[in-house]
C-alpha cells in the first residue's frame, strides 16, 4: 500500500530534517567564494573567484592532498589483499577459532579510534619504529581491512562451495577458478569495499594524529588551518573540491553493490 499524499506536517518535518543535514555543506561552498578572509561573516560581503587561484598556488595544500591520496591508496590496496584472503578462508572452511578470528578482524572498527591510535602509537615506539607515512598507512589499514572483509564475506557466502567444485571438476586449477569463478562473483563487492575503505582513510583524523610524525594529511591540515586562520576561504575551497571529487566514487559504489545483489544468488 502506498499513498500519494502524506500529511503536510510530516512533509515539513522531512524537509526540515534534510535541510538540517545538507545546508551546512552548502554553506561551505558559499564561504569558498567570500571576499572576507578573517572570519565567517554572514551574509558574505562580496563574492570572488580569487581563492581558487590562491589555493592552487599553496604548496602546503598540494603536499597534504598528495599524502592523503597516497595513504588512502596504499592502505586500500593492503586492505583489498588481506581482507579478501581473510574472507575467503573464514567463509570457505570450518576450523577451530573461526568465529573468534572473524570477531578479531572486525574489532578495530568497533573500537573507538582513539584506542586504536594510542595502542598503535605505543606499539610503534616500543618497537622503535620512527613515525612516517608508513605508520599512518599501517594505522589506516587496520580499519580498511574491516570494510573490505565485511563486503567480501557477504558475497563469498553466496558463492556456494559446489560452484568451486564444479570449476575444479571441469578442469580449472585454483588460480583459474579464482579468475573465472570467484573474481566475477565478488568483484563488485571488492570495488565497493575498496571505495569505502579509500573514503574512510581519506578523511581519518584520530588514528592519524596518533600515528603521524611531522606529516600532515588533508584532514589534519584542515584542522590546523581552522586553529590558525590564514586565508580562511582556502580551507573551504579544498573542502568543496574534496566533496565534489569523493561524491563520484561513492555514487559508483552505491550503484555497483545494488546491481551486485543479483549476481551470485541467482543460480540456486
Amino acid at each position, binding site marked *: 500500500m502506498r499513498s500519494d499524499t502524506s500529511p503536510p506536517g510530516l512533509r515539513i518535518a522531512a524537509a526540515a530534517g534534510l535541510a538540517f543535514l545538507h545546508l551546512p555543506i552548502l554553506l561551505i561552498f558559499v564561504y569558498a567564494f567570500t571576499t572576507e578572509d578573517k572570519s565567517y561573516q554572514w551574509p558574505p560581503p562580496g563574492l570572488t573567484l580569487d581563492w581558487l587561484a590562491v589555493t592552487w598556488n599553496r604548496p602546503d595544500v598540494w603536499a597534504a592532498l598528495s599524502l592523503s591520496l597516497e595513504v588512502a591508496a596504499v592502505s586500500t590496496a593492503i586492505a583489498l589483499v588481506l581482507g579478501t584472503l581473510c574472507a575467503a578462508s573464514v567463509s570457505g572452511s570450518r576450523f577451530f577459532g573461526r568465529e573468534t578470528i572473524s570477531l578479531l578482524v572486525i574489532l578495530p572498527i568497533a573500537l573507538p579510534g582513539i584506542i586504536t591510535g594510542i595502542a598503535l602509537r605505543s606499539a610503534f615506539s616500543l618497537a622503535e619504529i620512527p613515525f612516517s607515512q608508513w605508520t599512518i598507512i599501517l594505522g589506516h589499514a587496520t580499519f580498511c581491512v574491516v570494510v573490505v572483509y565485511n563486503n567480501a564475506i557477504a558475497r563469498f557466502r553466496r558463492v556456494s562451495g559446489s560452484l568451486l567444485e*564444479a*570449476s*575444479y571438476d*571441469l*578442469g580449472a586449477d585454483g588460480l*583459474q577458478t579464482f579468475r573465472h569463478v570467484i573474481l566475477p*562473483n565478488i568483484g563488485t563487492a571488492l570495488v565497493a569495499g575498496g571505495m569505502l575503505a579509500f573514503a574512510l582513510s581519506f578523511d581519518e583524523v584520530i588514528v592519524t594524529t596518533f600515528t603521524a610524525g611531522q606529516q600532515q594529511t588533508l584532514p589534519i591540515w584542515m584542522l590546523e588551518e581552522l586553529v590558525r586562520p590564514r586565508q580562511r576561504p582556502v580551507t573551504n575551497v579544498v573542502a568543496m573540491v574534496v566533496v565534489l571529487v569523493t561524491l563520484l566514487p561513492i555514487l559508483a559504489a552505491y550503484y555497483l553493490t545494488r546491481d551486485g545483489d543479483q549476481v551470485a544468488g541467482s*543460480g540456486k
Partner: protein
Amino acid sequence: MTFAVSFQKVSRHFGAVRAVDGVDLDIRPGEFFAMLGPSGSGKTTCLRLIAGFERPTAGHIEIFGARAEAIPPYRRNVNTVFQDYALFPHLNVVDNVAYGLMIKGVPKAARRREAGAALEMVKMPGYGDRRPGQLSGGQRQRVALARALVNRPRVLLLDEPLGALDLKLRENMQEELKTLQKSLGITFVFVTHDQGEALSMADRVAVFNDGRLMQLGTPQEIYGSPNSRFVADFVGSSNVLPPVLVERCAGQRRWASLRPEAVKIGAPGRLSATVVSRAYLGGATRLGLDVEGQRINALVPAGEALPAEGETVRLGFADEDLHLMEPG
C-alpha cells in the same frame, strides 16, 4: 579387464564418523552403475572420492587402471553433474557449457560450436543466451548435463540429479539419461536414494548402508535375492520373514525375503493368515495379511478370486521363492 573405476578397501573417515568403510567395488567400462542407499550411507562420499573432492583415509582408487588418490579433481577425466547443478550464475548457458573447453584453451568459435552441439544433445538448443537464473529446474539439469558431457569424460558422475524434479519430468529424464548413456558409451555412475530409479535405470546396483557396501548386483539380483534384511527392506516391497516363521516353512532359523507376487492365496497353504487390508492397484490387488502378528503383503493378479477383509486364508509359496538371508 581394466575397470572404469576400482575401489580397493577404500575408507574415508571424518573424525570418528566412518563415511565410507572398507569398500571394494569395480565399475565396468560403459556400464550404468547406480549407488543406492539412504542418506548418510556413504554413497555420495564414494562419488566424491571418484571425482577427487575427497581423498581416501585408507585404500586405493583406480580410474581406468591408473592410481587416482594423488590426482587432483581438475586432472581427472571424470565430470560431475551436481545435485544443485552448480551452474555459474555469472555466465550464460553457452558459456557455462563451454567452461571446461575454455579452461582447456579451445578457441572461442570452436567451443561455442561444441557447446551448441552439446545443448542440442540434451534438447536445449536456442537457450545459449539465457542466464541460469532464468531456467526451470529441469532445464538447469539439462544444462548441467551438457556442461559435463561436452568434455567427453570417460566417467560421468551424477549426484542425485533427478531429486529436485517433479515425477513426470523425472520419468522422462530417466529414459533420456538411459538412451544418452547407451549412445555415448560413457560409464555413468549414478547416486540415488530412490530404489525404483536405481532398479529401472542401472545395469548394476551397489546398495550402501552406514558407509559399507551391502550388496552389489544386477537389479534382478538385488530385488529378487537380497542378501540381508537391510537390502530387502530398502530395495523393495519385499516381505521380510522373521526366523520363527522361516524355521517352520524351510527348517532353517534364518531371516528370509519373499516377494509379494510370489505369495499364493489358498492352494497348499503353509501358513494361516487374516486379511487386514485390500488395495486395488489396477493390474493387481495388494492384500495386507497378518500372520501371527507379522505383516505380509501379497499381490493377487486381476481376475483371481479375492478373499474379503477379515477372512482367514491359507497362504503358500514355492520353495525357490523364499530367499534365505542372515541367520537370526
